[in-house]
Protein backbone atom coordinates (compact mmCIF):
# COMPACT_ATOMS: atom_id res chain seq x y z
CA UNK A 1 0.00 0.00 0.00
CA UNK A 2 1.43 3.37 -0.94
CA UNK A 3 1.52 5.96 1.81
CA UNK A 4 -1.05 7.96 -0.10
CA UNK A 5 -3.55 5.12 0.07
CA UNK A 6 -3.02 5.06 3.78
CA UNK A 7 -4.36 8.58 3.90
CA UNK A 8 -7.91 8.81 2.62
CA UNK A 9 -8.26 12.36 3.90
CA UNK A 10 -5.45 13.77 1.78
CA UNK A 11 -6.99 13.11 -1.59
CA UNK A 12 -10.65 13.40 -0.62
CA UNK A 13 -10.96 16.05 2.06
CA UNK A 14 -14.49 14.98 2.93
CA UNK A 15 -13.15 11.90 4.71
CA UNK A 16 -12.17 13.06 8.18
CA UNK A 17 -11.31 11.20 11.30
CA UNK A 18 -14.02 10.88 13.92
CA UNK A 19 -13.75 13.10 16.96
CA UNK A 20 -13.12 16.10 14.72
CA UNK A 21 -12.21 19.65 15.46
CA UNK A 22 -8.42 19.28 15.43
CA UNK A 23 -5.78 21.21 13.53
CA UNK A 24 -2.80 19.56 11.88
CA UNK A 25 -0.53 20.53 14.78
CA UNK A 26 -2.99 19.18 17.35
CA UNK A 27 -3.31 15.86 15.54
CA UNK A 28 0.42 15.34 15.24
CA UNK A 29 1.01 16.22 18.89
CA UNK A 30 -1.86 14.00 20.02
CA UNK A 31 -0.21 11.04 18.36
CA UNK A 32 3.21 11.99 19.70
CA UNK A 33 1.96 12.02 23.28
CA UNK A 34 -0.43 9.08 22.92
CA UNK A 35 -3.63 11.01 23.60
CA UNK A 36 -6.76 10.79 21.45
CA UNK A 37 -6.78 14.58 21.26
CA UNK A 38 -5.08 17.65 22.70
CA UNK A 39 -6.13 21.27 23.17
CA UNK A 40 -4.08 24.48 22.83
CA UNK A 41 -2.38 25.43 26.07
CA UNK A 42 -2.08 21.85 27.26
CA UNK A 43 1.45 20.71 28.18
CA UNK A 44 2.25 17.35 26.65
CA UNK A 45 5.30 15.12 26.63
CA UNK A 46 5.80 13.80 23.12
CA UNK A 47 7.86 10.99 21.64
CA UNK A 48 10.35 12.48 19.17
CA UNK A 49 10.62 10.86 15.72
CA UNK A 50 13.73 12.68 14.57
CA UNK A 51 16.34 14.80 16.37
CA UNK A 52 18.69 16.90 14.25
CA UNK A 53 21.73 18.84 15.42
CA UNK A 54 24.19 21.14 13.71
CA UNK A 55 27.17 22.82 15.38
CA UNK A 56 25.03 23.97 18.31
CA UNK A 57 24.59 20.28 19.16
CA UNK A 58 28.14 20.37 20.57
CA UNK A 59 26.75 22.40 23.48
CA UNK A 60 24.40 19.51 24.27
CA UNK A 61 27.20 17.06 24.97
CA UNK A 62 28.08 18.36 28.44
CA UNK A 63 24.48 18.46 29.73
CA UNK A 64 23.92 15.02 28.18
CA UNK A 65 26.68 13.63 30.38
CA UNK A 66 25.58 15.72 33.38
CA UNK A 67 22.19 14.05 33.09
CA UNK A 68 23.97 10.79 33.67
CA UNK A 69 22.88 9.52 30.28
CA UNK A 70 25.04 6.79 28.85
CA UNK A 71 23.47 6.09 25.47
CA UNK A 72 21.52 8.11 22.96
CA UNK A 73 17.92 6.86 23.09
CA UNK A 74 17.86 5.78 19.43
CA UNK A 75 20.88 6.35 17.15
CA UNK A 76 18.69 5.67 14.10
CA UNK A 77 16.64 8.77 14.89
CA UNK A 78 19.54 11.17 15.32
CA UNK A 79 21.01 13.18 12.44
CA UNK A 80 24.01 15.46 12.78
CA UNK A 81 24.65 17.82 9.89
CA UNK A 82 27.30 20.49 10.30
CA UNK A 83 26.72 23.49 8.11
CA UNK A 84 27.48 26.91 9.59
CA UNK A 85 31.27 26.79 9.22
CA UNK A 86 32.09 24.25 6.52
CA UNK A 87 34.96 23.63 6.21
CA UNK A 88 35.85 25.10 9.61
CA UNK A 89 36.79 28.77 9.19
CA UNK A 90 37.69 29.46 12.84
CA UNK A 91 39.39 27.49 15.60
CA UNK A 92 36.20 27.60 17.61
CA UNK A 93 34.26 25.98 14.78
CA UNK A 94 36.95 23.32 14.32
CA UNK A 95 36.58 22.45 18.01
CA UNK A 96 32.79 22.18 17.76
CA UNK A 97 33.14 19.88 14.75
CA UNK A 98 35.66 17.75 16.57
CA UNK A 99 33.42 17.47 19.65
CA UNK A 100 30.56 16.28 17.45
CA UNK A 101 32.75 13.78 15.61
CA UNK A 102 33.91 12.28 18.91
CA UNK A 103 30.40 12.17 20.24
CA UNK A 104 29.06 10.50 17.09
CA UNK A 105 31.78 7.89 17.30
CA UNK A 106 31.39 7.22 21.00
CA UNK A 107 27.60 6.96 20.68
CA UNK A 108 27.68 5.00 17.42
CA UNK A 109 25.60 7.55 15.55
CA UNK A 110 25.59 6.40 11.93
CA UNK A 111 23.91 9.45 10.39
CA UNK A 112 26.58 12.09 10.61
CA UNK A 113 26.79 14.33 7.55
CA UNK A 114 30.38 15.35 7.95
CA UNK A 115 32.36 17.57 5.61
CA UNK A 116 32.31 15.92 2.19
CA UNK A 117 28.67 14.88 2.25
CA UNK A 118 27.49 18.03 3.94
CA UNK A 119 24.75 20.55 3.33
CA UNK A 120 22.55 22.97 5.26
CA UNK A 121 21.01 20.86 8.02
CA UNK A 122 17.39 21.42 6.98
CA UNK A 123 18.12 20.57 3.36
CA UNK A 124 19.97 17.40 4.46
CA UNK A 125 16.86 16.33 6.38
CA UNK A 126 14.58 17.13 3.43
CA UNK A 127 16.50 15.54 0.59
CA UNK A 128 17.26 12.37 2.51
CA UNK A 129 13.71 11.81 3.73
CA UNK A 130 14.53 12.13 7.43
CA UNK A 131 11.25 13.83 8.27
CA UNK A 132 7.98 12.29 7.07
CA UNK A 133 4.27 13.11 7.47
CA UNK A 134 3.05 12.92 11.04
CA UNK A 135 6.51 13.21 12.60
CA UNK A 136 7.42 15.20 15.66
CA UNK A 137 10.89 16.45 14.73
CA UNK A 138 13.25 18.68 16.70
CA UNK A 139 16.45 20.44 15.72
CA UNK A 140 19.00 22.74 17.32
CA UNK A 141 18.27 25.43 14.75
CA UNK A 142 15.47 27.98 14.72
CA UNK A 143 14.60 27.23 11.08
CA UNK A 144 13.76 23.58 11.79
CA UNK A 145 10.22 24.80 10.98
CA UNK A 146 11.07 24.20 7.31
CA UNK A 147 10.48 20.46 7.69
CA UNK A 148 6.84 21.13 8.59
CA UNK A 149 6.35 21.22 4.82
CA UNK A 150 6.38 17.42 5.05
CA UNK A 151 3.16 17.52 7.07
CA UNK A 152 5.19 17.22 10.27
CA UNK A 153 5.54 19.22 13.47
CA UNK A 154 9.15 20.38 13.32
CA UNK A 155 10.47 22.69 15.99
CA UNK A 156 13.71 24.41 16.95
CA UNK A 157 15.07 23.84 20.47
CA UNK A 158 18.09 24.86 22.58
CA UNK A 159 21.06 22.64 23.41
CA UNK A 160 20.06 21.65 26.97
CA UNK A 161 16.73 20.57 25.69
CA UNK A 162 18.42 18.71 22.86
CA UNK A 163 20.48 16.85 25.45
CA UNK A 164 17.27 15.76 27.17
CA UNK A 165 15.89 14.52 23.84
CA UNK A 166 19.07 12.56 23.18
CA UNK A 167 18.82 11.04 26.64
CA UNK A 168 15.11 10.23 26.71
CA UNK A 169 13.65 10.58 23.20
CA UNK A 170 11.00 12.84 24.70
CA UNK A 171 10.23 16.54 24.81
CA UNK A 172 7.69 18.69 26.66
CA UNK A 173 5.61 20.97 24.49
CA UNK A 174 2.80 23.38 25.06
CA UNK A 175 0.19 22.65 22.40
CA UNK A 176 0.09 25.84 20.33
CA UNK A 177 -3.00 27.48 18.92
CA UNK A 178 -2.96 27.51 15.13
CA UNK A 179 -2.90 30.43 12.76
CA UNK A 180 -4.20 29.40 9.35
CA UNK A 181 -2.82 31.20 6.33
CA UNK A 182 -4.73 30.44 3.16
CA UNK A 183 -3.78 31.47 -0.33
CA UNK A 184 -5.83 31.11 -3.48
CA UNK A 185 -5.12 31.99 -7.06
CA UNK A 186 -2.13 31.57 -9.37
CA UNK A 187 1.28 33.10 -8.88
CA UNK A 188 2.13 35.25 -11.89
CA UNK A 189 5.36 35.32 -13.89
CA UNK A 190 8.31 36.40 -11.76
CA UNK A 191 6.32 35.87 -8.55
CA UNK A 192 7.41 33.02 -6.31
CA UNK A 193 6.70 31.26 -3.02
CA UNK A 194 9.21 33.68 -1.47
CA UNK A 195 7.06 36.63 -2.52
CA UNK A 196 4.00 34.95 -1.03
CA UNK A 197 5.64 34.33 2.33
CA UNK A 198 7.08 37.85 2.44
CA UNK A 199 3.63 39.22 1.70
CA UNK A 200 2.17 37.12 4.54
CA UNK A 201 4.97 38.28 6.86
CA UNK A 202 4.12 41.86 6.03
CA UNK A 203 0.60 41.03 7.14
CA UNK A 204 1.11 39.02 10.34
CA UNK A 205 4.43 40.68 11.35
CA UNK A 206 7.37 39.22 13.24
CA UNK A 207 5.45 38.50 16.43
CA UNK A 208 2.16 37.57 14.74
CA UNK A 209 2.64 33.85 15.23
CA UNK A 210 4.63 33.75 18.49
CA UNK A 211 3.91 30.45 20.31
CA UNK A 212 1.60 29.48 17.48
CA UNK A 213 1.60 26.85 14.78
CA UNK A 214 1.12 28.14 11.26
CA UNK A 215 -0.87 25.98 8.88
CA UNK A 216 -0.76 26.87 5.17
CA UNK A 217 -3.77 25.94 3.12
CA UNK A 218 -5.66 26.81 -0.03
CA UNK A 219 -5.44 26.19 -3.75
CA UNK A 220 -2.16 28.07 -4.22
CA UNK A 221 -0.42 26.01 -1.57
CA UNK A 222 -1.70 22.75 -2.99
CA UNK A 223 -0.24 23.76 -6.34
CA UNK A 224 3.21 24.48 -4.91
CA UNK A 225 6.13 22.07 -5.30
CA UNK A 226 7.83 20.69 -2.19
CA UNK A 227 10.80 23.08 -2.51
CA UNK A 228 8.36 26.00 -2.65
CA UNK A 229 6.60 24.69 0.45
CA UNK A 230 9.99 24.47 2.17
CA UNK A 231 10.50 28.17 1.49
CA UNK A 232 7.12 29.01 3.03
CA UNK A 233 7.53 26.92 6.17
CA UNK A 234 11.13 28.08 6.60
CA UNK A 235 10.05 31.68 7.04
CA UNK A 236 7.34 30.97 9.62
CA UNK A 237 10.28 31.29 12.02
CA UNK A 238 10.37 34.98 11.11
CA UNK A 239 6.71 35.21 12.23
CA UNK A 240 7.76 33.89 15.65
CA UNK A 241 6.03 30.55 15.01
CA UNK A 242 6.79 27.37 16.87
CA UNK A 243 6.06 25.35 13.73
CA UNK A 244 4.90 25.97 10.17
CA UNK A 245 3.24 23.24 8.19
CA UNK A 246 1.42 22.07 5.09
CA UNK A 247 -0.90 19.05 5.22
CA UNK A 248 0.59 16.09 3.35
CA UNK A 249 -0.76 15.29 -0.11
CA UNK A 250 0.25 13.43 -3.28
CA UNK A 251 3.19 15.78 -3.81
CA UNK A 252 4.52 15.07 -0.35
CA UNK A 253 4.30 11.32 -0.83
CA UNK A 254 5.79 11.54 -4.29
CA UNK A 255 8.74 13.58 -2.98
CA UNK A 256 9.38 11.03 -0.25
CA UNK A 257 9.01 7.97 -2.46
CA UNK A 258 12.04 5.76 -2.02
CA UNK A 259 13.77 8.13 0.41
CA UNK A 260 11.52 8.11 3.51
CA UNK A 261 13.68 6.92 6.39
CA UNK A 262 10.92 5.68 8.66
CA UNK A 263 7.22 4.86 8.58
CA UNK A 264 4.69 7.63 8.12
CA UNK A 265 1.67 8.54 10.21
CA UNK A 266 0.07 11.10 7.95
CA UNK A 267 -2.75 13.23 9.28
CA UNK A 268 -4.71 16.13 7.86
CA UNK A 269 -6.62 18.84 9.75
CA UNK A 270 -10.29 18.38 10.46
CA UNK A 271 -12.71 20.53 8.53
CA UNK A 272 -14.12 21.90 11.74
CA UNK A 273 -10.69 22.48 13.28
CA UNK A 274 -10.52 25.55 15.48
CA UNK A 275 -8.08 28.23 14.42
CA UNK A 276 -7.06 31.11 16.57
CA UNK A 277 -6.84 33.37 13.57
CA UNK A 278 -7.19 33.06 9.81
CA UNK A 279 -5.56 35.19 7.18
CA UNK A 280 -6.51 34.84 3.57
CA UNK A 281 -4.78 36.21 0.50
CA UNK A 282 -5.52 35.93 -3.18
CA UNK A 283 -2.28 35.77 -5.14
CA UNK A 284 -3.66 36.49 -8.63
CA UNK A 285 -2.50 40.09 -8.37
CA UNK A 286 0.44 39.47 -6.05
CA UNK A 287 3.54 41.36 -7.15
CA UNK A 288 7.14 40.48 -6.27
CA UNK A 289 7.92 41.57 -2.72
CA UNK A 290 11.03 42.69 -0.84
CA UNK A 291 11.75 42.87 2.89
CA UNK A 292 13.70 46.08 3.52
CA UNK A 293 16.14 46.74 6.37
CA UNK A 294 16.01 45.99 9.24
CA UNK A 295 13.21 43.51 9.68
CA UNK A 296 11.76 40.66 7.63
CA UNK A 297 8.29 42.16 8.09
CA UNK A 298 9.29 45.52 6.62
CA UNK A 299 7.83 44.36 3.33
CA UNK A 300 7.17 46.51 0.26
CA UNK A 301 6.38 45.82 -3.41
CA UNK A 302 9.69 45.11 -5.13
CA UNK A 303 8.87 47.32 -8.12
CA UNK A 304 8.43 50.33 -5.84
CA UNK A 305 11.84 49.81 -4.20
CA UNK A 306 13.43 49.13 -7.61
CA UNK A 307 12.25 52.57 -8.79
CA UNK A 308 14.31 54.11 -5.97
CA UNK A 309 17.52 52.65 -7.52
CA UNK A 310 18.87 51.11 -4.32
CA UNK A 311 22.54 50.36 -5.11
CA UNK A 312 23.94 47.06 -3.84
CA UNK A 313 27.48 45.87 -3.06
CA UNK A 314 26.72 42.19 -2.75
CA UNK A 315 24.11 39.73 -3.99
CA UNK A 316 23.69 36.45 -2.11
CA UNK A 317 21.91 33.45 -3.59
CA UNK A 318 21.95 30.87 -0.83
CA UNK A 319 20.55 29.69 2.54
CA UNK A 320 18.00 27.09 3.62
CA UNK A 321 15.23 29.38 2.39
CA UNK A 322 16.15 29.53 -1.29
CA UNK A 323 19.21 27.63 -2.56
CA UNK A 324 17.66 24.48 -3.97
CA UNK A 325 17.92 23.31 -7.58
CA UNK A 326 14.69 25.08 -8.58
CA UNK A 327 15.96 28.35 -7.09
CA UNK A 328 19.34 28.12 -8.77
CA UNK A 329 17.72 27.30 -12.11
CA UNK A 330 15.39 30.33 -11.87
CA UNK A 331 18.34 32.55 -11.10
CA UNK A 332 20.53 30.98 -13.80
CA UNK A 333 17.83 31.51 -16.41
CA UNK A 334 18.14 35.24 -15.76
CA UNK A 335 21.90 35.31 -15.29
CA UNK A 336 22.88 33.19 -18.33
CA UNK A 337 25.13 35.18 -20.65
CA UNK A 338 25.12 38.18 -18.31
CA UNK A 339 27.79 39.70 -16.07
CA UNK A 340 27.84 40.82 -12.45
CA UNK A 341 27.67 44.64 -12.30
CA UNK A 342 31.06 46.32 -11.79
CA UNK A 343 31.99 46.64 -8.13
CA UNK A 344 29.40 44.06 -7.01
CA UNK A 345 30.10 40.57 -5.59
CA UNK A 346 27.64 37.81 -6.40
CA UNK A 347 27.91 34.82 -4.05
CA UNK A 348 26.09 31.62 -4.97
CA UNK A 349 26.02 28.85 -2.35
CA UNK A 350 23.97 25.71 -3.05
CA UNK A 351 22.05 24.28 -0.10
CA UNK A 352 23.71 20.86 -0.22
CA UNK A 353 26.57 18.96 -1.81
CA UNK A 354 24.04 17.02 -3.86
CA UNK A 355 22.67 20.27 -5.28
CA UNK A 356 26.24 21.42 -5.94
CA UNK A 357 26.82 18.27 -7.98
CA UNK A 358 23.59 18.74 -9.91
CA UNK A 359 24.64 22.29 -10.72
CA UNK A 360 27.86 20.91 -12.14
CA UNK A 361 25.97 18.43 -14.29
CA UNK A 362 23.51 21.01 -15.58
CA UNK A 363 26.25 23.50 -16.31
CA UNK A 364 24.97 26.08 -13.82
CA UNK A 365 28.36 26.48 -12.17
CA UNK A 366 29.63 27.71 -15.54
CA UNK A 367 26.65 30.01 -16.02
CA UNK A 368 27.35 31.74 -12.73
CA UNK A 369 31.15 31.81 -12.76
CA UNK A 370 31.40 32.87 -16.42
CA UNK A 371 29.47 35.95 -15.43
CA UNK A 372 31.77 36.74 -12.51
CA UNK A 373 29.88 35.13 -9.63
CA UNK A 374 31.62 33.25 -6.82
CA UNK A 375 30.16 29.75 -6.69
CA UNK A 376 30.96 28.39 -3.24
CA UNK A 377 30.92 25.11 -1.47
CA UNK A 378 27.59 24.29 0.18
CA UNK A 379 27.11 25.80 3.64
CA UNK A 380 25.14 28.51 5.42
CA UNK A 381 27.73 30.74 3.74
CA UNK A 382 26.97 34.47 3.91
CA UNK A 383 23.54 33.98 5.53
CA UNK A 384 24.56 34.60 9.13
CA UNK A 385 27.62 36.84 9.15
CA UNK A 386 30.00 34.47 10.86
CA UNK A 387 31.54 32.44 8.10
CA UNK A 388 32.10 34.28 4.80
CA UNK A 389 30.68 37.02 2.63
CA UNK A 390 30.36 39.53 5.48
CA UNK A 391 29.30 43.15 4.92
CA UNK A 392 31.01 46.36 6.03
CA UNK A 393 28.95 49.04 7.82
CA UNK A 394 28.09 50.98 4.68
CA UNK A 395 27.35 48.03 2.42
CA UNK A 396 24.05 46.83 0.99
CA UNK A 397 23.13 43.26 0.06
CA UNK A 398 20.33 41.69 -2.00
CA UNK A 399 19.75 38.26 -0.49
CA UNK A 400 17.59 35.17 -0.97
CA UNK A 401 17.92 34.30 2.74
CA UNK A 402 15.42 34.80 5.56
CA UNK A 403 16.66 37.43 8.03
CA UNK A 404 17.78 41.02 7.71
CA UNK A 405 18.07 42.09 11.34
CA UNK A 406 20.93 44.50 12.19
CA UNK A 407 24.21 42.61 12.12
CA UNK A 408 22.81 39.49 10.48
CA UNK A 409 25.44 39.47 7.72
CA UNK A 410 28.24 41.35 9.42
CA UNK A 411 28.26 45.03 10.42
CA UNK A 412 25.15 46.09 12.30
CA UNK A 413 24.65 49.09 10.01
CA UNK A 414 24.83 47.00 6.82
CA UNK A 415 21.54 46.80 4.94
CA UNK A 416 19.98 43.58 3.67
CA UNK A 417 17.07 43.32 1.24
CA UNK A 418 15.34 39.91 1.19
CA UNK A 419 13.85 38.72 -2.10
CA UNK A 420 13.38 35.78 -4.47
CA UNK A 421 16.34 34.07 -6.22
CA UNK A 422 15.28 35.55 -9.58
CA UNK A 423 15.26 39.04 -8.09
CA UNK A 424 18.71 38.45 -6.54
CA UNK A 425 20.11 37.39 -9.92
CA UNK A 426 18.78 40.46 -11.71
CA UNK A 427 19.95 42.71 -8.87
CA UNK A 428 23.47 41.25 -9.26
CA UNK A 429 23.43 42.11 -12.97
CA UNK A 430 22.02 45.62 -12.50
CA UNK A 431 23.97 46.46 -9.35
CA UNK A 432 20.76 47.64 -7.74
CA UNK A 433 17.57 46.12 -6.33
CA UNK A 434 15.65 44.95 -9.40
CA UNK A 435 12.29 43.42 -10.36
CA UNK A 436 12.73 40.15 -12.32
CA UNK A 437 9.53 40.72 -14.29
CA UNK A 438 11.43 43.26 -16.36
CA UNK A 439 13.37 40.48 -18.09
CA UNK A 440 10.97 37.53 -17.92
Amino acid at each position, binding site marked *: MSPAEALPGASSPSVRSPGGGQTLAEKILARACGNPSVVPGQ*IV*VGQVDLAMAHE*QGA*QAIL*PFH*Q*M*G*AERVWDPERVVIAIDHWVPASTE*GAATLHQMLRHFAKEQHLPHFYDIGRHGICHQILAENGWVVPGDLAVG*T*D*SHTNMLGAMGAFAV*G*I*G*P*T*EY*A*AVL*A*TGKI*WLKVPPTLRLTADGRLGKGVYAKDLVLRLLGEVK*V*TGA*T*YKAVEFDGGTIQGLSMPERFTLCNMTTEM*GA*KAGMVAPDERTFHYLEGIAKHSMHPVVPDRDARYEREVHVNVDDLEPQVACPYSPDNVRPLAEVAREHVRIDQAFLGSCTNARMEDLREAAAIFRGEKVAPGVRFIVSPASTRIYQECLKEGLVGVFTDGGAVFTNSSCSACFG*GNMGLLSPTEVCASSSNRN*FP*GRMGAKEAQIYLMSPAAVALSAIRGEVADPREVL
Partner: protein
Amino acid sequence: MGTPLKGRVWCVGDDLDTDQLIAGKYLTIIDPELLKRHVLENVEPRFSQEARVGDLLVGGINFGCGSSREHAPAALKAIGLGAVVADSFARIFFRNAINLGLPAVEAPGVRALFQPGDQAEVDLERGTVENRTRGGSVRFEPFPKHLKEILEAGGLVEKVRRELHPPAPGAAP
Protein backbone atom coordinates in the same frame (compact mmCIF):
# COMPACT_ATOMS: atom_id res chain seq x y z
CA MET B 1 8.15 26.85 44.86
CA GLY B 2 6.06 27.61 47.93
CA THR B 3 7.70 30.80 49.18
CA PRO B 4 7.12 33.90 47.11
CA LEU B 5 10.19 35.42 45.43
CA LYS B 6 11.01 38.87 46.77
CA GLY B 7 13.54 41.16 45.20
CA ARG B 8 14.63 44.42 43.76
CA VAL B 9 13.55 45.17 40.21
CA TRP B 10 15.59 46.00 37.11
CA CYS B 11 13.63 47.17 34.09
CA VAL B 12 14.12 46.78 30.34
CA GLY B 13 11.86 47.62 27.40
CA ASP B 14 9.93 45.80 24.68
CA ASP B 15 11.48 43.44 22.11
CA LEU B 16 14.70 42.99 24.05
CA ASP B 17 16.51 40.51 21.80
CA THR B 18 19.10 37.93 22.75
CA ASP B 19 21.80 40.00 21.02
CA GLN B 20 21.18 42.74 23.56
CA LEU B 21 21.28 40.22 26.39
CA ILE B 22 24.57 38.69 25.19
CA ALA B 23 26.25 40.13 22.11
CA GLY B 24 27.23 37.77 19.30
CA LYS B 25 30.94 38.34 19.93
CA TYR B 26 30.70 36.48 23.24
CA LEU B 27 29.14 33.33 21.83
CA THR B 28 32.33 31.34 22.00
CA ILE B 29 32.26 31.76 25.79
CA ILE B 30 30.48 28.78 27.27
CA ASP B 31 31.15 29.27 31.01
CA PRO B 32 28.13 31.17 32.46
CA GLU B 33 30.35 32.71 35.16
CA LEU B 34 32.33 34.49 32.43
CA LEU B 35 29.28 35.19 30.30
CA LYS B 36 27.47 37.00 33.08
CA ARG B 37 30.00 39.85 32.99
CA HIS B 38 28.65 40.85 29.58
CA VAL B 39 24.94 40.43 30.09
CA LEU B 40 22.96 43.53 29.02
CA GLU B 41 26.18 45.48 28.68
CA ASN B 42 24.89 47.82 25.97
CA VAL B 43 21.47 48.28 27.54
CA GLU B 44 22.09 48.59 31.28
CA PRO B 45 25.86 48.68 31.86
CA ARG B 46 25.51 48.61 35.68
CA PHE B 47 23.48 45.43 35.66
CA SER B 48 26.23 42.83 35.52
CA GLN B 49 28.15 44.59 38.30
CA GLU B 50 25.35 45.58 40.63
CA ALA B 51 22.62 42.98 40.24
CA ARG B 52 22.36 40.82 43.35
CA VAL B 53 21.18 37.30 43.93
CA GLY B 54 17.39 37.33 44.13
CA ASP B 55 16.89 40.49 42.03
CA LEU B 56 14.17 40.40 39.39
CA LEU B 57 14.34 41.51 35.78
CA VAL B 58 11.11 43.01 34.42
CA GLY B 59 10.66 43.26 30.65
CA GLY B 60 8.03 44.29 28.14
CA ILE B 61 6.60 42.34 25.24
CA ASN B 62 8.52 39.76 23.18
CA PHE B 63 11.34 39.49 25.71
CA GLY B 64 14.26 37.37 24.44
CA CYS B 65 13.40 37.44 20.74
CA GLY B 66 15.97 36.83 18.00
CA SER B 67 18.50 34.04 17.86
CA SER B 68 17.95 30.91 19.91
CA ARG B 69 21.19 31.26 21.89
CA GLU B 70 21.00 29.59 25.30
CA HIS B 71 23.82 31.88 26.43
CA ALA B 72 21.27 34.59 27.25
CA PRO B 73 19.23 32.83 29.97
CA ALA B 74 22.40 31.03 31.14
CA ALA B 75 24.04 34.39 31.90
CA LEU B 76 20.93 35.70 33.69
CA LYS B 77 20.80 32.56 35.77
CA ALA B 78 24.48 32.91 36.67
CA ILE B 79 23.73 36.41 38.01
CA GLY B 80 21.38 34.69 40.44
CA LEU B 81 18.14 36.39 39.36
CA GLY B 82 15.05 35.12 41.14
CA ALA B 83 13.01 35.34 37.95
CA VAL B 84 12.54 37.18 34.70
CA VAL B 85 9.04 38.63 34.52
CA ALA B 86 7.74 40.09 31.28
CA ASP B 87 4.57 41.07 29.46
CA SER B 88 5.39 38.28 26.98
CA PHE B 89 8.33 36.12 25.92
CA ALA B 90 9.70 34.91 22.63
CA ARG B 91 9.22 31.17 22.47
CA ILE B 92 12.72 29.74 22.51
CA PHE B 93 13.95 32.10 25.24
CA PHE B 94 11.04 31.02 27.45
CA ARG B 95 11.86 27.34 26.96
CA ASN B 96 15.58 27.79 27.42
CA ALA B 97 15.03 29.74 30.66
CA ILE B 98 12.70 27.13 32.15
CA ASN B 99 15.00 24.33 31.07
CA LEU B 100 17.90 26.02 32.84
CA GLY B 101 15.78 26.40 35.99
CA LEU B 102 15.25 30.16 35.67
CA PRO B 103 11.56 31.06 36.16
CA ALA B 104 10.30 33.01 33.14
CA VAL B 105 7.01 34.49 34.27
CA GLU B 106 4.67 35.77 31.60
CA ALA B 107 2.47 38.34 33.29
CA PRO B 108 0.76 40.69 30.80
CA GLY B 109 0.75 44.25 32.10
CA VAL B 110 3.70 43.79 34.44
CA ARG B 111 6.08 46.21 32.77
CA ALA B 112 3.80 49.19 33.38
CA LEU B 113 3.64 48.29 37.07
CA PHE B 114 7.31 48.84 37.88
CA GLN B 115 10.04 51.46 38.04
CA PRO B 116 13.69 50.45 38.40
CA GLY B 117 14.59 49.78 42.02
CA ASP B 118 11.05 48.93 43.19
CA GLN B 119 10.59 45.92 45.41
CA ALA B 120 8.54 43.10 43.89
CA GLU B 121 6.98 39.94 45.18
CA VAL B 122 6.30 37.09 42.78
CA ASP B 123 4.14 34.22 43.98
CA LEU B 124 4.57 31.33 41.57
CA GLU B 125 1.92 29.23 43.33
CA ARG B 126 -0.84 31.82 43.32
CA GLY B 127 0.21 33.47 40.10
CA THR B 128 0.64 37.06 41.25
CA VAL B 129 3.26 39.78 40.87
CA GLU B 130 2.97 42.60 43.36
CA ASN B 131 4.73 45.94 43.54
CA ARG B 132 5.63 46.28 47.23
CA THR B 133 6.97 49.80 46.81
CA ARG B 134 4.09 51.51 45.01
CA GLY B 135 1.32 48.97 45.32
CA GLY B 136 -0.60 47.30 42.49
CA SER B 137 -0.40 43.78 41.18
CA VAL B 138 -0.99 41.66 38.11
CA ARG B 139 -2.01 38.04 37.83
CA PHE B 140 -0.58 35.30 35.68
CA GLU B 141 -1.36 31.69 34.90
CA PRO B 142 0.67 29.61 37.41
CA PHE B 143 3.09 27.10 35.87
CA PRO B 144 1.61 23.74 34.95
CA LYS B 145 2.85 20.67 36.82
CA HIS B 146 5.47 19.61 34.30
CA LEU B 147 7.18 23.00 34.24
CA LYS B 148 7.02 23.25 38.02
CA GLU B 149 8.85 19.95 38.25
CA ILE B 150 11.62 21.26 36.00
CA LEU B 151 11.96 24.45 38.04
CA GLU B 152 11.88 22.58 41.34
CA ALA B 153 14.63 20.28 40.15
CA GLY B 154 16.69 23.36 39.27
CA GLY B 155 16.49 22.68 35.55
CA LEU B 156 16.06 20.00 32.95
CA VAL B 157 19.52 18.47 33.47
CA GLU B 158 18.74 17.62 37.08
CA LYS B 159 15.20 16.52 36.29
CA VAL B 160 16.35 14.08 33.62
CA ARG B 161 19.18 12.89 35.87
CA ARG B 162 16.68 12.03 38.59
CA GLU B 163 14.50 10.21 36.09
CA LEU B 164 17.38 8.20 34.68
CA HIS B 165 18.86 7.46 38.11
CA PRO B 166 16.07 7.42 40.68
CA PRO B 167 17.38 7.46 44.26
CA ALA B 168 17.41 3.99 45.82
CA PRO B 169 14.31 3.27 47.93
CA GLY B 170 14.91 4.24 51.52
CA ALA B 171 17.72 6.64 50.64
CA ALA B 172 17.68 9.97 52.39
CA PRO B 173 15.64 12.55 50.42
